[in-house]
């Protein structure tokens, strides 16, 4: 028994205009200062006004939202009393909106208690709309809420199926001006979601097609979307790919590249997509040494070479590395600019924090293997164990 959860998804040009049709009284927009500066809050506000709704904006979300920040936002939300919550921005804004929504509905809970194992009873006070402004997070359609414990400098994967938004609006107008390096980082995030969603131990028939399609879109359109900001088709396809990948991995879960990538953000300030993307080829190599078949299926779908499953998986690794090169993503942790001594000093913590997220990997490394993987990824060595 398992579930497939998805919001209603409105996508394509003018998707934002659908906001003018929602019924309600008050909307609470959760976003960050950059999104305000870009004028996206104004775009949303225009539609809300057309719907006859009042709104208030909380624009204090920071990258890697912390427990403290979401508590602040939930307090502001409670003071305003919205019947719609709108998460507008990248993954941090969307995850923050999801967490604040829970705390607004359940003031008895702490952020770190948000979990999928008990009913939360959401939607008594408000419903959630998610509007991504990057093409990678997938948070607009997933139930996962990634928050950071600032004291421990640790990311925690929280959330509940009830956290899935009621409505996701995927409008390419919001990524037209996305800077190329952010398009590259977030595009690698989408690719990692899709590859891990297809190969995790919870992969399932309902997600497979979504993951494969997302992988194909990323390979076809990410280089164009990064190389040329004016390539509207590529930007739109990547925006769709990210949401499709989110649906895929959100219902089958991420795996080892996410487990290894998560610690890099709070410890070294590496953007999430770049962090998980740099580990992706190494984790494929590691997994494929025991279970290459699913990776070979991806390779076949993409039309890559490979007479055997192992060859197919190897060709996928090469394709991922080639894609990363083309969009100027780092090939190793060293290329992220992290000093070896700092990395070694943090290694134990990265292992401890990362291993909690390895539970859905098809091959789960023990602590020694995880340490070796971190070191191989630092040096850029081909994984041979």
């Amino acid at each position, binding site marked *: 028994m398992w579930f497939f959860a998805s919001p209603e998804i409105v996508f394509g040009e003018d998707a934002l205009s659908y906001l003018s049709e929602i019924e309600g009284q008050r909307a609470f927009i959760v976003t960050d200062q950059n999104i305000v500066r870009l004028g996206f809050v104004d775009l949303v506000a225009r539609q809300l006004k057309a719907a006859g709704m009042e709104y208030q904006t909380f624009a204090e979300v920071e990258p890697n939202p912390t427990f403290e920040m979401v508590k602040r936002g939930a307090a502001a939300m409670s003071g305003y009393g919205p019947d719609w919550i709108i998460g507008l921005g990248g993954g941090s804004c969307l995850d923050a909106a999801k967490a604040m929504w829970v705390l607004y509905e359940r003031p008895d809970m702490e952020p770190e208690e948000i979990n999928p194992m008990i009913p939360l009873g959401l939607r008594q006070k408000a419903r959630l709309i998610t509007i991504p402004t990057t093409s990678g997070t997938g948070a607009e359609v997933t139930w996962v809420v990634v928050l950071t414990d600032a004291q421990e400098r640790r990311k925690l994967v929280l959330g509940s199926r009830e956290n899935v938004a009621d409505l996701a609006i995927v409008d390419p107008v919001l990524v037209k001006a996305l800077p190329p390096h952010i398009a590259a980082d977030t595009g690698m995030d989408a690719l990692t979601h899709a590859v891990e969603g297809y190969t995790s131990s919870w992969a399932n028939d309902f997600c497979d097609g979504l993951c494969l399609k997302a992988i194909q879109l990323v390979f076809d359109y990410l280089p164009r979307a990064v190389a040329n900001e004016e390539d509207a088709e590529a930007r739109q396809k990547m925006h769709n790919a990210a949401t499709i990948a989110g649906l895929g991995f959100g219902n089958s879960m991420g795996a080892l590249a996410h487990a290894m990538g998560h610690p890099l953000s709070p410890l070294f300030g590496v953007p999430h997509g770049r962090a998980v993307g740099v580990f992706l080829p190494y984790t494929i190599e590691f997994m494929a040494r025991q279970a290459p078949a699913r990776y070979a299926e991806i390779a076949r779908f993409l039309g890559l070479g490979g007479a055997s499953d192992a060859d197919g998986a190897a060709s996928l690794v090469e394709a991922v590395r080639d894609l990363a090169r083309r969009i100027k993503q780092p090939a190793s942790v060293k290329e992220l600019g992290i000093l070896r001594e700092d990395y070694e000093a943090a290694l134990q913590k990265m292992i401890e924090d990362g291993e909690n997220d*390895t539970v859905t990997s098809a091959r789960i490394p023990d602590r020694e293997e995880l340490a070796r993987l971190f070191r191989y990824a630092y040096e850029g060595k081909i994984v041979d164990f």
Partner: protein
Amino acid sequence: MPKFLSDEWIKALCQELNQSEAYAQAARNWEGDFYFIVEPEGEMTEPAIFYMDLWHGKCRDAKLVTDEKEKDPVFRMGAPLSSWRKVIARELDPVQGLLTRRLKLKGNMAMIMRNVKAAQELVECCTRVPTEFPSE
């Protein structure tokens, strides 16, 4: 081979946990005792309740209790016999079981969310205990 609903079985699991380096590592921060409740199904008429005192990667005590009031553990995990059987046979991923609420858990959820790997290693140990199930 210990019978599943016996004191002998839970003590065998306790021993397995204490021999497992992987469990010791994954549960190094774990503090809290547990009731594992096997809800009646088939020929069972009463629930079977296993008590385990789990502390920083070690099992300090384990026994079958006959009166639920005997202890007041921090966590309680309950499921029908058939679900436990699937977990132990690796037919049901324990984390997926919790997410689909086929395994029902009560207790400090923040602690659970920080120690998902420990739950997985605990089940790994369960699978290594030779087990005779009631209907076998």
